[in-house]
């Protein structure tokens, strides 16, 4: 897919809390095709400690309004700067980057997200719905403060919630949600994004049930376009770049011990 470098205008900065923000960005130009699971590389200007661009998954896209949104959790200086950006300012993006999730033609899918890993799942749910796949979405967090935008996800699928402390939804880990063992639903595919430990648990669960499973990996990236080879992950075919051959991988291709 052709990649672009475009200046977007910040249309909205929705602070979810002091750690998480959704930035809605608008382009003057018509947006090209973008797949669920792809990401962008954002230039964070004027900061000595954010020399390189920062990768963020596409949270949502509106092709009519030419808007693209990012779900940003503060991890350090760059992400912090972004959560404080003001409406009207410009952000320079390279996109769309990486592969996307595979979208089946029918059936139902289970989406499991934790932390800022819920980022790519909204656009994924939307794309699944538009392809007549029924999305069930489990959002997990430590407590209810970690669960965001339920109404948004509900637009495209059925939302289920787990929290470690039981303050919202079912108490416990995402892999223990009752929907997973619901005899009435047969999931054709499971997608997950979030902390590595969670993704590994999901992968294990999927494997034990014999369900296809795709994960979206993170990695330290310098270029995001396959030029530097900094972002490799070990696969059964050797080192692969997360930025061009991922970030979405089928768990069968990874060398995870699960």
């Amino acid at each position, binding site marked *: 897919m052709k990649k*672009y*470098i475009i200046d977007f205008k910040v249309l909205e900065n929705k602070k979810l809390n002091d750690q998480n923000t959704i930035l809605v960005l608008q382009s003057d130009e018509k947006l090209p095709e973008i797949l669920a699971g792809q990401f962008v590389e954002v230039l964070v200007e004027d900061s000595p400690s954010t*020399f390189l661009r920062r990768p963020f998954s596409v949270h949502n896209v509106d092709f009519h309004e030419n808007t693209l949104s990012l779900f940003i959790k503060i991890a350090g200086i760059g992400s912090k700067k972004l959560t404080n950006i003001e409406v009207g300012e410009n952000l320079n993006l*390279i996109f769309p980057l990486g592969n996307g999730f595979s979208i089946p033609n029918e059936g139902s899918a289970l989406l499991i997200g934790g932390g800022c890993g819920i980022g790519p799942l909204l656009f994924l749910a939307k794309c699944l719905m538009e392809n007549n796949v029924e999305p069930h979405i489990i959002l997990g967090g430590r407590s209810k403060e970690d669960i965001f935008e339920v109404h948004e996800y509900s637009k495209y699928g059925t939302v289920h919630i787990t929290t470690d402390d039981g303050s919202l939804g079912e108490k416990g880990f995402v892999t223990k949600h009752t929907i997973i063992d619901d005899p009435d639903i047969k999931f054709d595919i499971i997608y997950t994004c979030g902390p590595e430990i969670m993704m590994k648990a999901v992968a294990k669960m999927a494997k034990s049930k014999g369900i296809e499973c795709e994960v979206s990996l993170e990695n*330290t*990236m310098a270029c995001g376009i396959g*030029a530097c*080879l900094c972002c*490799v992950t070990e696969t059964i075919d050797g080192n692969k770049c997360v930025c061009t051959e991922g970030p979405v991988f089928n768990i069968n291709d990874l060398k995870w011990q699960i």
Partner: protein
Amino acid sequence: MADLKIKINQLEFKNPVLTASGTFGYGLEFDDFFDVNLLGGILVKATTNAKREGNPYPRMAETASGMLNAVGLQNKGVDYFVNEIYPLIKGYQTNVIANVSGSTIEDYIVVAEKMNELENIPAIELNISCPNVKQGGMAFGTSCASAQEVTKAIRKVYSKTLIVKLSPNVTNIAEIAKAVESEGADSVSLINTLLGMAINAETRKPILSTVTGGLSGPAIKPIALRMVWQVSKAVNIPIIGLGGIMNATDAIEFFLAGATAIQIGTANFIDPTVSLKVVNGINEYLDRHKFASINDIIGKLEVKN
């Protein structure tokens, strides 16, 4: 519109802006962003004799105005390059230059011999300065004797333009440049990355899997400039300068210090179109200062004595 053409050995470049090995893939990764044929040349990523998986993850750490990398020459080997990559890039209308790396002199020789056969690869850059591999690599570039030895061996088997890429991790880079010049190198390129290290204070672990890695970016520009200047006083072959060039002004500084051409590395990651902007910026500078040709500023730093 000033004349941007330069020559290294008999090889002509439409302009003096090249991209640095390991930071521009095979050029193909940048086709979406601009017409890379507008550049003077492309240094493609390192090729070794055998396939190399490179180093384990993590391979990158960001530092103040720079970055460390520990890629470790990941590539599929020279045969894969010849059979699979070369067909894709041989059509470029610019100088595509191979970066030849190895662990032993024999390795270098095999790769250079095979590159010599490729019609549309008019030059190689001998990488005797990679800090990210356990054997060979930088070791060849840190003593005059070994730099001389590998250059001599390659000069015997490689008949086209031979550029030797020098390591900055040395006491006296001018001596090394003279040593490779004496063995028939047509040009030297400098600098490769400086050996550095990054630590995560919270986890008390090194950030890179290899503990140390190569430092690049604007942080190293003052060192690179100084080395180009020192080498330009020591050798008669043309110098290709690089290290931290982010824009045309930086590039002009390297020309003034004595570089005939420049390479752009890390900056490609931040703005994939930067190299083309540098070409245009150099042109604009020359026009504004009423220089007819890029050759009018090479080595023209005005130093009082």
